[in-house]
Every structure is written in structure tokens, then in C-alpha cells.
């Protein structure tokens, strides 16, 4: 949000630098069940973002002092790989990734039926292979699919997407240039069946009107993302039952 640029981010026809309209999200590709060892996994691309997510659990919670005797906890590690950004990111945890990990874990805690697994931990690992603005939304969207792939009971699959503002236009799903040189970014995640909000951040500068307009777009897009999530899970289940069918022969 901090930058200034001479770049025209939205032209007179309302077209953005990557050819999108203001209310158009980037192309999304989701694949469930992409890893062998993890209990559940998901690969997700949105625009130039590439995210891999694995879920392990429910399993014994370590360290022990974090155990909750009444329910499972979700532990999330969001990690940007060294080469995922133009300037190499030094390996290891930084403050930004601690915050994002916390927010993703909290958002997922809203939908997972944690009370089924007292004392357990459900561990969610989000690896950013390539970053181009919107990685927390991409990571959370992928994590929801990976949880479902792991067969963990949830009341819904959570989609996430951002809205924001650049060149004075309210936009859906900011890319890197729009994030760097724009005026606002609002990551949002919802429970599609109830439209509850489970993740919301905002930074920048928005009037009430702009904010509500952006939110409208983001809610609508989140439902679309949810369809893509469900589609990926449907393909995954088809694949599994096919294999099981094969092995029956």
C-alpha cells in the first residue's frame, strides 16, 4: 500500500494491467490429494501465486502444554520458500509469517469440528512456492481443501479472496503491482453456507461506500472460489473411488 508509481493500474476502459476487469479474479487452479505422506493436501494456483498445502492429523498435540482437554487445536505454519519472491527470502520464521499463520489457524478453527478430537492437534502447513500478492488468501483456500481431503469433519469449506483499491477503483483480487502501488487491500474469508466472516483484514484508505462495494465483490467471488474448491474435491473423490473400484476387480 505504501508505494507511488507512474504506472496506470486501471485504464480508462476499466481494464487492469493483466487484462482483467475490476471485478474479475485471477484464474484459479486447485488440485486435491497431491502429496503421498500428508493426510490431506492441496496444490493451488491463482494468477502467479503457487501454493502447496499439507494437513497432518488429528494427531497427538506437541508441545503438550498446548493441548486442550476439550477439543483439538489447529496449528498452522505459513512459510514463503526462499525463491518465491524476487529478492531471496532468508529461510526461517519472520513476524509477517507468524501473523498469517495465526490468522489462518483461527479462520479454520471456525469450521472444523474440533470438539471431536480432544487433546489432538491438526497441523496445517502452507508453503508458498511463488508469491504474487494474495498468498494468505490462496493459502487459506488451499488449506480448507487439504483439510477436506484429509477427511476432517468441517461444517463448510472456507474460500478466501481479497478486494482492494487502486488508481481510485475498487478492485477484486489484487495482483502484486496493485498491492504495491494501490490504495487498499482487504483479504476476506467466509463460510459460504452462512456468509459468516472468518478472516478479515484491511489496510489502506477506503470510505465506507468503497469498503462495502469491495466487500460485495469479494463475497460474490468467494462463493465462486468455493465452487472451484468443491469441484477439486469432487475430482479427488472420483479418483479415489475409481482406484478403489480398480482394486476391487
Amino acid at each position, binding site marked *: 500500500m*505504501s508505494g507511488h508509481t507512474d504506472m496506470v493500474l486501471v485504464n480508462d476502459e476499466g481494464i487492469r494491467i493483466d487484462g482483467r476487469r475490476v471485478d474479475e479474479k485471477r484464474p484459479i487452479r486447485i488440485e486435491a490429494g497431491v502429496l503421498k505422506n500428508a493426510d490431506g493436501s492441496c496444490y493451488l494456483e491463482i494468477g502467479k501465486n503457487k501454493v502447496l498445502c499439507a494437513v497432518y492429523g488429528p494427531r497427538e498435540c506437541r508441545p503438550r502444554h498446548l493441548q486442550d482437554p476439550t477439543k483439538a487445536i489447529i496449528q498452522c505454519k505459513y512459510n514463503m520458500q526462499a525463491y518465491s519472491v524476487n529478492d531471496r527470502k532468508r529461510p526461517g520464521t519472520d513476524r509477517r509469517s507468524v501473523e498469517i499463520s495465526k490468522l489462518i489457524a*483461527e479462520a479454520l478453527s471456525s469450521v472444523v469440528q474440533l470438539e471431536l478430537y480432544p487433546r489432538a492437534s491438526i497441523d496445517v502447513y502452507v508453503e508458498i512456492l511463488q508469491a504474487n500478492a494474495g498468498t494468505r488468501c490462496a493459502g487459506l483456500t488451499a488449506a480448507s481443501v487439504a483439510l477436506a481431503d484429509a477427511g476432517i469433519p468441517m461444517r463448510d469449506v472456507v474460500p478466501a479472496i481479497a478486494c482492494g483499491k487502486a488508481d481510485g477503483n475498487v478492485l477484486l483480487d489484487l495482483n502484486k503491482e496493485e498491492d504495491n502501488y494501490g490504495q487498499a487491500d482487504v483479504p476476506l474469508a467466509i463460510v459460504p453456507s452462512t*456468509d459468516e*466472516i472468518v478472516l478479515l483484514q*484491511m489496510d489502506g*484508505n*477506503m470510505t465506507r461506500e468503497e469498503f462495502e462495494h469491495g466487500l460485495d465483490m469479494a463475497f460474490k467471488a468467494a462463493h465462486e472460489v468455493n465452487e472451484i474448491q468443491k469441484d477439486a474435491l469432487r475430482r479427488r473423490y472420483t479418483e479415489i473411488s475409481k482406484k478403489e473400484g480398480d482394486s476391487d476387480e
Partner: protein
Amino acid sequence: MSNYVISQIKRDHLMNLLAEGRREDGRQLDEIRKITVETGIIESAEGSARIRLGNTDVIAGVKVIPGAPYMDAPGDGVLTTGAELIPLAHESFEPGPPSEEAIELARVVDRGIRESGMIDVKQLCIKEGEEIWMVFIDIYALDYDGNLFDASNLAAVCALKTAIVPWKQYGKSKVEGDKVTEMDDVPMPVTCLPISVTECKIGNDLIVDPNFDEEAISTARLTITTDNNGNFRAMQKGGKGSITRGDLSLCLDRAVEIGKQIREIIG
């Protein structure tokens, strides 16, 4: 903090009160606690403030030191915000590197200050590409009775508002091209006052400025920072529960309204 268990009895009590629209300490649901502001209390800092928000007590100090600019913003001063939940402030705070709670706190306060453009960083340039003023905002919780977000935001804002840029003290002159301007120590270039308002969701109710007990039984938290014009500058939803869009709408209304109240209190 995460391990603190408030007894079931206490929880029921608070929930029963809320069912009647009341709170433990007699406040309205949208009423903040008493704010006390002390500034200029640390002479070794370029700015400082201690805020009491009810029984929550937070101190912030500002150090302003010459340093090198970032390559992608050669003429801008640099802001850095840190927050520490020191064990002095509550039995649940542990010594050691910042917890994820402390990190989130610092980042939310930082975003409110940064994204509102509170500080005109252009005026913190000593010589473009070579030397700028680095502004370090360090926040310490001293007594924790809920809502560190708003108390910390207030402490940081009041410390900055009363801070100076120590040009003279460091013997620095402003260099623009060939022009060298001798400088006195000047007030921190403040353009607006970003004020955050935090609410918690308990059952179906939203309450403003939660105290420790209220935080302990809440399911979600929402912090909204507005600028002098009532525009939104930063938001952060926290907690393992959800909020509805109706909740959000109510919080946005209150954030603007209460932001105005607070701005009047701190002048």
C-alpha cells in the same frame, strides 16, 4: 493468555448480564472505559505516552535516530513498531521472544499508523538516498485488563503526536541538492490521528473495549482503525469464531463514532 481459564460460573454470570444488555462494570455495550493520557514522561525518548484504559496500562516510547533509507524509498523516513507483552503486566505473559499475540499486536498498531499516513515520512529525509530519520515506536504492556489493541494504538499515537525530530541534538542539516538548511529540533510531522476501536463478540452481542474477563469468553475480535475523516485505514479480525456482515456493519458505525469521541479526549 491462551491458557487462561475463566470459571464457568463467571462466564454464565457475564452472559446473563449481557442477555439483559448489561456489563460487569456497568458499561453500555458500546461504551469505552475511562482513558487517562500522560505524555512526555520519558526524557530519554523523543516522545512518550502512558495510557490507562480502565485498568489496562500501556506505555509507548518513540526514539528518532539517523539511519540509512530503504533502496526503494530513498527519500522517506522509516517507521518501526514493536510491542512486548512483558511478564510484569500479567501472570499469563512469559519472558522470551515476542509471542504471536505480541507480534499481531505490533503489526496491527503499525498498520494503523503507517496506512493512515499519520507521519509525513517525506519530512523525515535528511539527505535523499543517504540518510533519513528512523522512528522506532516501542510499546510495553504494564497492566493488562483487556483490549491491548486500542490502548497500544493510543499510546503509540500520543507518543508520536508529542515527539520531536532531534535535528539539532544530532547536529543534522537538511540537504536538498545544493541547498543545506540548518534545522532546529521540530515536532514530529503528524498529519492525522489514526484511532482504533476494538470490539468482541460474546454470544450474539458485540461489546466495545472488552476487559480481560470479556475477552476470555469472547469468540471473535474486530479492530477497526479510522482517520480524522472517518475513513477506514486498517482492520483486523481475530479469534476462532466468526462475525456476520451485520456485525461488521455495526462495528464500522461504532468505530467511526467512538473514534471521534477518543480523538476529542486526546486532543
